[in-house]
């Protein structure tokens, strides 16, 4: 199965008035056709920046791709023409944003906002078909079609997120970037939304990158997972490989310690000490050095190599160098 999306060594910076923020530093990631990849990491790890760079929606004059490449099927996103990108967005790749409250245009009817995607990408489809398509996708996400003439402010948070999902999937995109789609929702709604997304994914056989900081969701819904820290991928592999917890990047191990485990008797969770590296002046070597218990001179000196500890299971840490013992 060839890769649908290949991001190689992507570096992205934000030029704000005060300073330059290094959002992505050598970000490499690939997604296969129909695969559901969970992208995990703390806030500020560059997850949203990755999605925006893939759609080339970085804020102009501020966000800038310094180096690296993004390839979607055979199109090089960074060099694609404006027209090509317009055809891509919404049809081939579509995105679901985090906050449902402000994701919809408050002065446009919900139905029209969905139909807009069809108007853009299926101009020759007859209006009657378009309406039918909108009704169909609305029922799919669990909203009665009669409500399509209502306005966003007449919907609850959960319902709005369903509309956003409908909008993202109506054109049956090949790749769906979901940027923490359920964070703003409470747990009960969260489960429904995720179940819905999985069902639709199968139906349209589209790949999905589910960006979240909740390992529980990744374990339950994704096939593979990538752990992002300070703008780069520190570990990636299948759910089984990573969640087996025998070989993990120290940061991933720290993340696992933060999850309350029904079986363990530990009175307290052990948070990861220290703070995320400051994106304005990143350390030379491994970004996790200042918080890593096994930090060595080598780690501080240079960025560690990505090591393949098992077929498809990569960890970017000197501990797992060929011949190293691995703790």
């Amino acid at each position: 199965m060839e890769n649908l999306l290949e991001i190689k060594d992507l570096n992205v910076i934000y030029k704000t008035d005060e300073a330059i923020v290094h959002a992505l530093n050598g970000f490499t990631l690939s997604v296969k056709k129909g695969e559901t990849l969970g992208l995990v990491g703390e806030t500020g790890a560059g997850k949203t920046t990755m999605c925006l760079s893939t759609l080339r929606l970085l804020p102009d004059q501020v966000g800038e791709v310094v180096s690296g490449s993004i390839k979607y099927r055979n199109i090089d996103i960074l060099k694609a023409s404006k027209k090509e990108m317009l055809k891509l967005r919404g049809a081939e790749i579509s995105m679901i944003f985090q906050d449902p409250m402000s994701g919809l245009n408050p002065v446009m009817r919900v139905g029209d906002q969905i139909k807009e995607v069809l108007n853009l990408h299926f101009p020759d489809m007859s209006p009657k078909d378009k309406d039918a398509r909108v009704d169909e996708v609305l029922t799919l996400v669990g909203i009665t079609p009669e409500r399509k003439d209502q306005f966003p402010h007449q919907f609850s948070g959960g319902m709005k997120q369903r509309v956003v999902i409908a909008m993202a999937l109506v054109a049956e995109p090949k790749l769906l970037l979901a940027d923490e789609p359920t964070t703003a929702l409470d747990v009960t709604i969260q489960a429904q939304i995720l179940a819905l997304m999985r069902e639709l994914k199968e139906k349209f056989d589209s790949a999905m990158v589910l960006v979240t900081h909740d390992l529980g969701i990744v374990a339950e819904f994704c096939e593979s997972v990538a752990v992002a820290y300070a703008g780069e991928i520190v570990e990636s592999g299948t759910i089984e490989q990573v969640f087996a917890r025998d070989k993990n990047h120290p940061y991933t191990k720290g993340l696992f310690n933060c999850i309350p485990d029904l079986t363990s008797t530990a009175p307290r969770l052990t948070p990861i000490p220290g703070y995320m590296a400051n994106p304005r002046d990143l350390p030379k070597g491994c970004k996790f050095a200042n918080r890593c218990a096994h930090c060595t001179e080598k780690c501080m000196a240079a960025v560690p190599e990505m090591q393949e500890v098992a077929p498809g299971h990569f960890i970017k840490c000197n501990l797992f160098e060929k011949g190293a013992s691995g703790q």
Partner: protein
Amino acid sequence: MIKYTLRRILLMIPVIIGITFLVHFILMISPGDPAQMIVGPEATLEDIEMKRHELGLDQPQVVQYLKYMWNALHGDFGTSWFQSFNVMTEFSHRLPYTLRLGFLAIIWAVALGIPLGVISAVRHNTIVDYALTVLSLILVSAPAFWIGMMYQVFFSLNLRWLPASGASTWRHYILPALSLGGGVFATNCRTTRTWLLDTLRSDFVRTARAKGNKEVTVVFKHALRNSLLPIITQIGVNFSIIMGGSVITETVYAFPGIGSYLINAVKAKDVPIVMASILVVAVIVGITNLVVDLMYAVVDPRVQLGGK
């Protein structure tokens, strides 16, 4: 909608009564005896007394006010004290001129202000943005009469393109409309830029882009549509600025509207004319505010009329 409009019109009545009473009170407590002024210095005491009685000035202020409003209700604005003709006929001639000039000024100010505001918001922090900011701030800062005079000297005297005074042909309207609309154009441009900048940063604009919309559609169909609310409020406020500004522009260009008429009446303390003008202006400003509120509901579904 109709219930709301009716309620608003009823609400306007106390406001209009309030402002007319305030103005009448101020004019009446002012020093100087109007009757004496009208009859002139050579008149005898009986002349003055006869005039006072004729104008009803010997009655208490409140009674005079009520009498005036009662007549005004019946369309009789009384006769001007110093020029002895019916105020109503004068107004029916002059009001159309002021309204025409006002509309012309607002139309060009909006038609140019909003697009340029959009351009300076989209091209944020570029030379275009700075140039438009400085231009609009200059137009807001320069006194209207000074600009009016400069236009006159430049356009009609040096270039001989346009007439400097009067209102007989449409070309007479250009210079007054330009100088009257200057300040309003600037505020429109500034408001559009500020609010559009705000909306361009919001999430649904990013969603619109993610759907594959072209930048033009994103800016106009999504972003601008959402910042129409404050822009329309600004247009409502503009109209009352224009009514104020017309006093000056009409004096500079000898334009036969109620502006120049009002300033002479105020100076000579010709009470019937001042009262009639304040009444008419208050009604016009009241109506424009009502129209602006009604447009809120049209523009933004979240606004329920009556929930004001």
